[in-house]
């Protein structure tokens, strides 16, 4: 328990320290909700059971052609993907952060990124556990118990679609995974086509700050899922030059970048009074075109920050905020 706590503190401090310099606010959102990504790797505990191909795809051969029937997902984005590709009935437990789709509400919880309940996981006798890339300790433990893991880390939109396919292959739903990925790609293409004709407004995408203050703001840098969504939705990220998923800009930097539009995404829904109060906070930075022209948008819903099967919806929501004229 003490060791676990220590690790939690260490991780928090580590995240925090890198946060000023690197990308961690965004990581945090994703690690928490835990997101999807490029580097999906299926790890076989028993050599020869599986052949895992390098690079893009994932191939399963030998004994494991038979679909896995008991899956535990510790990653909300992956849980959503499982349900989207028809593997929902195989899911026997999920993480403590899962709340979509509604079917997961009835499933047992087995902890999450920082506090996976290993005993519970083992008791449930899963055939496959979906883990986050930083949970290497858990992966080793599960491998020792002869349980396969699907380890992945979050990335951009392309990574999310690839993970969908990999997950399909790993769970006996390869065709469904493929189809779903193509379907989402089509949604994204449709959004992109719709806004293509319009000039790209310089956009600040905010995903966190102190309530009723512009202090300690987290915004999307020029890498990762939120940046991709902004690109697809026809915006030009004012922090595209900072090749990080998250940037913590000062008031000065935000003033200097002078965005035309500000989009704030929140997982927690705000009431109308809260929205107008939070919008009012921006008045302090009156020289920003977005503030002067009243182009500040508040979008809520966890689908906006989870790189799962709802990325099409997220792109459309952002596109509607940036280009209302394209959706008339």
């Amino acid at each position: 328990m003490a060791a676990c706590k220590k690790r939690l503190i260490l991780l928090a401090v580590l995240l925090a320290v890198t946060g000023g310099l690197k990308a961690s606010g965004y990581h945090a959102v994703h690690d928490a909700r835990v997101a999807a990504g490029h580097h999906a790797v299926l790890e076989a505990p028993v050599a020869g059971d599986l052949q895992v191909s390098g690079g893009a795809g994932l191939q399963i051969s030998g004994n494991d052609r038979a679909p896995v029937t008991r899956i535990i997902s510790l990653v909300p984005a992956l849980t959503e993907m499982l349900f989207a590709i028809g593997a929902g009935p195989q899911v026997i437990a999920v993480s403590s952060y899962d709340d979509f789709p509604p079917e997961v509400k009835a499933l047992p919880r087995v902890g999450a990124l920082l506090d996976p309940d290993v005993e519970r996981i083992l008791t449930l006798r899963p055939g496959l556990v979906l883990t986050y890339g930083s949970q290497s300790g858990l992966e080793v433990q599960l491998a020792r118990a002869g349980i396969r893991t699907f380890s992945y880390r979050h990335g951009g939109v392309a990574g999310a679609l690839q993970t969908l396919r990999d997950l399909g292959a790993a769970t006996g739903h390869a065709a469904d995974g493929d189809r779903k990925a193509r379907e989402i790609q089509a949604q994204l293409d449709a959004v992109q086509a719709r806004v293509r004709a319009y000039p790209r407004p310089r956009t600040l995408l905010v995903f966190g700050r102190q309530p009723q203050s512009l202090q300690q703001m987290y915004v999307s840098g020029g890498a990762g899922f939120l940046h991709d969504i902004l690109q697809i939705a026809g915006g030009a990220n004012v922090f595209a030059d900072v090749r990080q998923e998250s940037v913590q800009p000062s008031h000065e930097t935000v003033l200097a970048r002078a965005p035309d539009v500000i989009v704030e995404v929140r997982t927690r829904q705000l009431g109308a009074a809260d929205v107008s109060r939070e919008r009012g906070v921006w008045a302090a930075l009156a020289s920003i075109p977005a503030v002067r022209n009243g182009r500040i948008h508040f979008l809520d819903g966890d689908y906006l920050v989870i790189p799962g099967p709802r990325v099409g919806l997220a792109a459309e929501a952002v596109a509607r905020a940036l280009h209302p004229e394209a959706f008339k």
Partner: protein
Amino acid sequence: MTSSGSTIARVSAGPRPIRSRLAVTLLAYGALALVTCLLAPLVGSTSISLSRAFDRSIPFADNVDAQIFFVARMPRVLAGAVVGAALASAGVVLQALLRNPLATPFTLGVSAGAALGAILAISFGAAVTLGPLSPVPLASLAGAFAAAVIVYALATRPGRAMSTSVLLLAGVTLNSFFSALILFVQYLADFAETYRTVRWLMGDLDVGGFGPILGALPLMVAAFLIFALLPSSLNLLSVGADIAATRGVDVARTQRLAFLSSALATSAAVSLAGPIGFVGIVVPHLVRLMAGVDHRIVLPASAFFGAAFLVACDLVARTILAPVEIPVGIVTAMLGGPFFLWLLVRKG
């Protein structure tokens, strides 16, 4: 406590030398603080035109340079100066009160109380505001006051001198207790909020306007008015409560004022900028190493030097990796720590 003899010697050496030494030292430290505060707003992550910033013919709302100068930089420098001065002074006072060179403004548990308040506000999305105070600073102020009241109640008995050892132990224990509560709240909260709370703990001077500073100012002013009464009594108190009492110091009153003023200053500083570490311990010791141990000099000199130190650290924090920033608490520790060790070794 080898320095105590010389303190008394110097204190009783007569008014003339101390007065002129005081004037010269304060002039030097004051000038340092002033120059730092005047130069710091001229530099930033973006280059701005000062003539444009001060051009009254352009409406303020359209003048980016003016907004950067007056909304982003000036409040930030001012916050740095005020917080630096408050933490350094509180450090001096508490080191004398507790007769412990390791005491910091955070030793009394006030900052942990403030942190718990802030973290509750962040984790549960509090919406209560008071004047210029937004929810997080307000909650941290409430937490700081609660902690100060608890520690004070534990360490005082009516009509008797404060037990500094109880004060110290109660503060340290309260720090641990609040830290445990903070971890518990963080553990229950959503990860994104957890991250934000950890960020708060690293300190931040980018207050984005004069409002938050005005909110903290009444407490700061009260604290500094009390600080001004303390130096002579602190000189004697730092030698020992008994000696101070035989020389006519009202020990209980001095202790109370010292506690009250440092708690006020720390609460205001932490609610404004988060618990920025190292200023409260490094600055007083640096000043003592440079200017002697007389509190009539050390206290005001530390206030000035603390202001200059924090403003300079924040300048590094906001420019060195621009447009990305380093939390200022990391800079104070990374610059202050090694410098202090170097001075210590050199002196030793």
